[in-house]
């Protein structure tokens, strides 16, 4: 069998995974605070063996660092909906108890009075989870301080009940966890807090950040994949017909 077929096969296989990843971004086009992460480049691997030095198989080199490009902001007017500015991330407690980070800003107060996000992750403050006194109105200032105000006694100034764990991740590369939350790439800081970067970690109350997936870009990538897939399959069909011609020549009349 011609080795060309295997080179084409390698191209098709490497594309399958990339396409699955792109489809995942597309499926999450409406997820609050979703961040695209996948960047890919094909690398040619030279295969030595019989024949000319012409066998280069593609291998996927993936880079799975979270891209903190901003998503689309929507005004909701809800004081518990926050969007994070620049490269700010919010610390939450993952299901396994580790500290992880997220860009989801749809916060709420649970029946026990602690703040969590809509995906059910417990939001962390600088001194552990933030508890809001019963029935108080919550406002969040741009530096992440959570204030609780009495809805009836307007002359009483709002009380600060905690500071959200906001971190600037402009110099800390983040990667994804299995549950979709972010963690620092540096093994030393995995599952824990990381030192905040030089930027100012801040948020904006009353808005929600959508997904940062660019649907147009993803669609064009998909079209590209479809066509290059067809080209690879054509190559395989070509090898098939070359092989067939070869074997028919050797057939006894």
């Amino acid at each position, binding site marked *: 069998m011609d080795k060309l077929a295997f080179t084409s096969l390698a191209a098709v296989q490497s594309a399958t995974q990339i396409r699955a990843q792109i489809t995942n971004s*597309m*499926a999450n086009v409406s997820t609050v605070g979703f961040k695209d992460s996948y960047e890919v480049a094909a690398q040619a691997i030279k295969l030595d063996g019989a024949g000319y030095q012409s066998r280069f198989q593609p291998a996927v080199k993936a880079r799975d660092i979270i891209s903190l490009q901003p998503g689309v902001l929507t005004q909701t007017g809800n004081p518990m909906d926050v969007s994070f500015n620049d490269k700010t991330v919010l610390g939450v407690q993952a299901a396994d108890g580790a500290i992880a980070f997220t860009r989801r800003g749809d916060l709420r107060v*649970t029946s026990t009075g602690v703040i969590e996000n809509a995906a059910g992750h417990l939001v962390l403050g600088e001194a552990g989870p933030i508890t809001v006194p019963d029935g108080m109105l919550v406002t969040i200032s741009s530096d992440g301080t959570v204030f609780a105000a009495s809805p009836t006694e307007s002359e009483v100034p709002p009380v600060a009940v905690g500071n959200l764990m906001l971190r600037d991740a402009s110099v800390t590369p983040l990667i994804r966890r299995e549950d979709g939350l972010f963690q620092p*790439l540096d093994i030393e800081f995995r599952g824990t807090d990381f030192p905040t970067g030089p930027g100012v970690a801040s948020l904006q109350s009353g808005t929600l950040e959508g997904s940062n997936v660019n649907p147009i870009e993803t669609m064009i990538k998909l079209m590209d994949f479809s066509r290059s897939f067809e080209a690879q399959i054509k190559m395989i069909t070509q090898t098939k017909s070359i092989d067939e011609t070869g074997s028919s020549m050797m057939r006894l009349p």
Partner: protein
Amino acid sequence: MDASLWIAKTGLTAQQTRMQVISNNLANVNTTGFKKDRAVFEDLLYQNIVPAGGQADAENETPTGLMLGTGTRVVATEKMHAQGNIITTENALDVAITGDGFLAVQQTDGSLAYTRDGSLKLSSDGQLVTAGGQPIVPAINIPQNTASITIGRDGTVTAELANSGGAAQVGQLQLSRFVNNSGLAPIGRNLMQQTNASGDPIISIPGEDGAGMLMQGSLEASNVNVVEEMVNMIETQRAYEVNSKAIAAADGMLRFLNNNL
């Protein structure tokens, strides 16, 4: 089969659910005391293909890992308890709640449900009931010879008796508040039920301890914003299209494969 087919399918399902939520909001644009829902999206679990920091060879570590996503889902629908517009109806038995709080009503099985719909009625024996016929808790009975009813901002119900019989205070409406309003379970008929997520009701007199005030002669309209829902609908429709395009692309590739190999 192809993984991307199934990933795109999760996108379609989630957008479909979101469309249902939007349609329900739009259908209830004229429902008194209705609170709009919002679909909450979440990305699904990731498959760890290459762990970050794994050994690439004897000396080097892979600098970044590779996590393969598996799609999205709607994890919850969240009620948005923003105040709806107040509409003046001039009907003595219509009360709007301005601020936080719910009127408690008794269901047929004896359990309590909570409503923002203040279009109250009188039952045949003179008890205050909701438009659906459930009695308000605490029960308030209006005497038969009542000429007019006044409901104060603090919930005091006063009956002005006919034939200059004077005024009599017949009861006081109470409001129930919850720590987490979004945790209440909507059960239809403008009613909601307390759950573990909402916490226990905090019963207070209207206007005190953070509870809202009552406004007689008004109703609270639905808080659905039609323009917002329309924009959401367009967004949902386009997101649905993008995902179905992904399915079409994967399908086209498989068809090409089947036809040509």
